[in-house]
């Protein structure tokens, strides 16, 4: 059988780095094909070439028997290739139908389009109301909008980049049913994910990239997550060390944090209370958009509360700003790498200054010690194995995982008493994620209190001592991890999140 898509020695180099070097592989019709690799292995560049966002320097692609060299995403869509990105490109203030209309090349009358959306979305088990505002939708539903937008173009090949990172376990199950249905209809899916268990459950074949080259192909169902991860990194995966630390005194306590929503589409915090002890990792689970950002801002000091709502070792700190809290030993690592944790256009040295000035004493009377800062940046790069030519490189030149290691390292190396991390391993490959989790464990073992906010339940079950769930801006009471089950937590996170309608209709 002729493969649907075949790549023949695709090569793409950027100044200073070869992203893809003679990559060849093929996707059969009606196949779910996984594209695996560490961050920086070249997956994004390859997918961008297939979707017409970059033009390869050398090599050919074929779609069935025709030469395929899309000059733009529009050309790729024309040829039947669609893509769902990891980051959604939707307008909050527009309706579902309006958002979809914006992404489509040809213009359908609005009523006909709404009807098509209902039809297609229901047909694939992803019901959507075309008239609702995207700003009012949950993350799972937003992803549906992106998927339905692709399906309306009847693609032959659907590319999905990290689709499950924002979904509850129940929502993942629904998505997988849809993907399997598409496979039965003969649609091919190129699936990028770091969640190896999911890949083993869903994908027919996998191509593994390392350093821009294809290093292996396998049938995921016949491998273990560990063996796949080791193929990706080309080395043995370290086994996490067990922690034996006994929780000490309470370090950080939240006492009924109430904060109004800062913007129309944000979530208010409602009576959030918890305690974290020295040596303890508190995991906060929840579907994106349920108040994690707002809770993070309140804890990091970007938004202030009344003094007593947050106490550090008994001292009220609710009114203090980020630097006041840093001076006391409370550090934070935001979720959004580019733009929040980092200034993308600034160098790693400057980004080390960004949150390291107070605690690393990188300033004197307002004047900045740049050489000391460069040393600090170098220390982070070395201790956390950040792959970059040096601290003078712009933050945005690093791959997501390397950048994440840099920002987690930046806070960890400042020996915090309390560390708050939001999505510590989001979009990060297995090896980097393992390193980050180990760093959090080591920190707790050294007597720090850690709060890990994450949508990855498996991760939280692995690293946390106790677990709480945030939903609609309220936090459930933390419970020891040993006492909770994934199903229970999934339901507390909102189950299928208002998607029950789906089953009623179908």
């Amino acid at each position, binding site marked *: 059988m002729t493969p649907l898509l075949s790549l023949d020695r695709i090569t793409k180099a950027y100044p200073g780095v070869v992203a893809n070097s003679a990559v060849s592989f093929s996707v059969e019709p009606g196949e779910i094909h996984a594209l695996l690799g560490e961050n920086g292995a070249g997956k994004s560049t390859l997918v961008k070439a297939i979707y017409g966002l970059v033009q390869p320097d050398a090599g050919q692609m074929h779609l069935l028997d025709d030469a395929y060299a899309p*000059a733009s995403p529009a050309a790729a869509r024309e040829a039947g290739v669609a893509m769902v990105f990891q980051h959604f490109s939707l307008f909050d203030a527009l309706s579902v139908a309006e958002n979809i209309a914006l992404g489509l090349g040809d213009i359908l009358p609005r009523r006909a389009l709404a009807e098509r959306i209902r039809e297609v979305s229901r047909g694939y088990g992803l019901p959507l109301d075309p008239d609702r505002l995207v700003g009012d939708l949950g993350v799972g539903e937003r992803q549906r909008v992106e998927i339905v937008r692709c399906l309306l173009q009847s693609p032959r090949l659907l590319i999905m980049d990290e689709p499950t990172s924002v979904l509850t376990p129940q929502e993942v199950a629904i998505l997988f049913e849809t993907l399997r249905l598409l496979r039965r209809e003969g649609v091919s899916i190129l699936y990028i994910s770091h969640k190896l268990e999911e890949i083993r459950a869903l994908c027919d074949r996998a191509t593994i990239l390392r350093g821009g080259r294809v290093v292996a192909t396998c049938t995921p169902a016949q491998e273990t997550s560990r063996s796949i991860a080791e193929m990706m990194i080309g080395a043995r995966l370290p086994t996490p060390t067990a922690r034996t630390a006994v929780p000490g005194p309470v370090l950080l306590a939240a006492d009924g944090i109430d904060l109004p929503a800062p913007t129309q589409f944000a979530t208010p915090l409602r009576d959030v209370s918890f305690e974290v002890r020295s040596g303890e990792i508190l995991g906060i689970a929840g579907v994106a958009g349920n108040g994690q950002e707002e809770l993070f801002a309140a804890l990091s000091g970007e938004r202030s509360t009344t003094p007593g709502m947050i106490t550090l070792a008994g001292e009220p700190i609710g009114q203090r700003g980020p630097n006041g809290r840093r001076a006391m030993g409370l550090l934070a690592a*935001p979720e959004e790498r580019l733009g929040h*944790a*980092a200034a993308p256009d600034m160098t790693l040295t*400057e980004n080390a*200054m960004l949150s390291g000035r*107070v605690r690393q004493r990188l300033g004197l009377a*307002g004047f900045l010690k740049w050489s000391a800062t460069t040393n600090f940046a170098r220390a982070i790069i070395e201790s956390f194995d950040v792959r970059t030519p040096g601290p003078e490189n*712009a933050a945005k030149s690093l791959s997501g995982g390397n950048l994440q290691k840099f920002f987690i390292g930046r806070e960890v190396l400042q020996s915090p008493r309390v560390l708050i991390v939001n999505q510590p391993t989001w979009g990060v490959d297995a090896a980097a994620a393992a390193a980050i989790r180990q760093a959090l464990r080591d920190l707790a073992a050294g007597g720090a209190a850690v709060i890990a906010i994450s949508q990855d339940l498996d991760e939280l079950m692995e690293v946390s001592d106790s677990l709480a769930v945030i939903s609609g801006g309220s936090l459930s009471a933390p419970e020891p991890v040993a006492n909770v089950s994934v199903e229970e937590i999934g339901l507390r996170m909102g189950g299928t999140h208002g998607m029950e309608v789906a089953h009623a209709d179908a």
Partner: protein
Amino acid sequence: MLTLELRTSQSRVMTVATPIIAVICTMIAGGILFAALGKNPVEAIRVIFIDPLFDPFSRTELLVKACPLILIGVGLSLGFRAGVWNIGAEGQFIMGGIAASAVGLAFYGTEGQWLLPLMAVAGALGGWAYAMVPAVLRVKFTANEILVSLMLVYVADQFLRAMVSGPLRNPAGFNFPESRLFHDSAVLPILIEGSRVHAGVIAAFVAVLLAWLVLERHIIGFNIKLTGSAPRAAAFSGVKPGAMVVVCLGISGACAGLAGMIEASGPFGQLVPTLPQGYGFTAIIVAFLGRLHPVGILVAALVIALTYIGGETAQFALRLPAAAISVFQGMLLFFLLGFDILVRYRVRRLRVA
């Protein structure tokens, strides 16, 4: 077919090259404009850009004209980097001039070396206070500082007219709307014999140095760059957005106010209704032409000063209308902003599939 491709990092070559390309394109387009006005374009460009450089008096005049542009441009550039758009430097310039003149006139006839520094402080404070109006309105009521600061220019202009026709009018001036001529202690000393180059030029160079120091070595400069580059990262770093607005408008207002004092006490030597010459607006072009970099602004201010001086010569030598020179300066900003795209993007020839 040509297409634009995003560069992985900003091109340093283009950062420096685009202002030069813009100047060259302005010369070409300006030449076409002058030709359309029936003038010899080559001669017009020569009169504007080349001749002043070979005339000793014009060379010193470059410094006189560039001085307020540098001072205001440097102040504005800090705010522009942080995304705080002070468009009303002209108004702050006027208010600084009025405040400094009022102090100078209050001590009319009193000799002393302390008077000029006092006037400088009054000028800077006047500009700063006037810039606080848009700053407070922005922070407290989220009023757009672009509109508020711009509209306040016209208020300041009327206030100046009221002052020179009222409280600050020369009692022995036959009711002309202007102040007394400042006495010696209130006039900036001349640095170069036989020219108009005054001590204010030193202040402009000091401002360049200070701005460079603040941007490269100080937390205020770092926070300014951070706010402009990634506002959320700045908030995470501990920068309060409101404080940033107040600081940036304050610095640029003080710089403009000081420039107002220097103009009044330097070239004019009195307070006149024609004190505002549009430096506050032209400094916006200067700031961008100089890439918001202190040294770049120094160079840009000299280039713009050249067009002023050359433009004046062209007005009487070639009978070019005054408006043509303004159009000329406007073209410069237009080309500069247009070519800016080359810093972030590269032009690629698209292969035809």
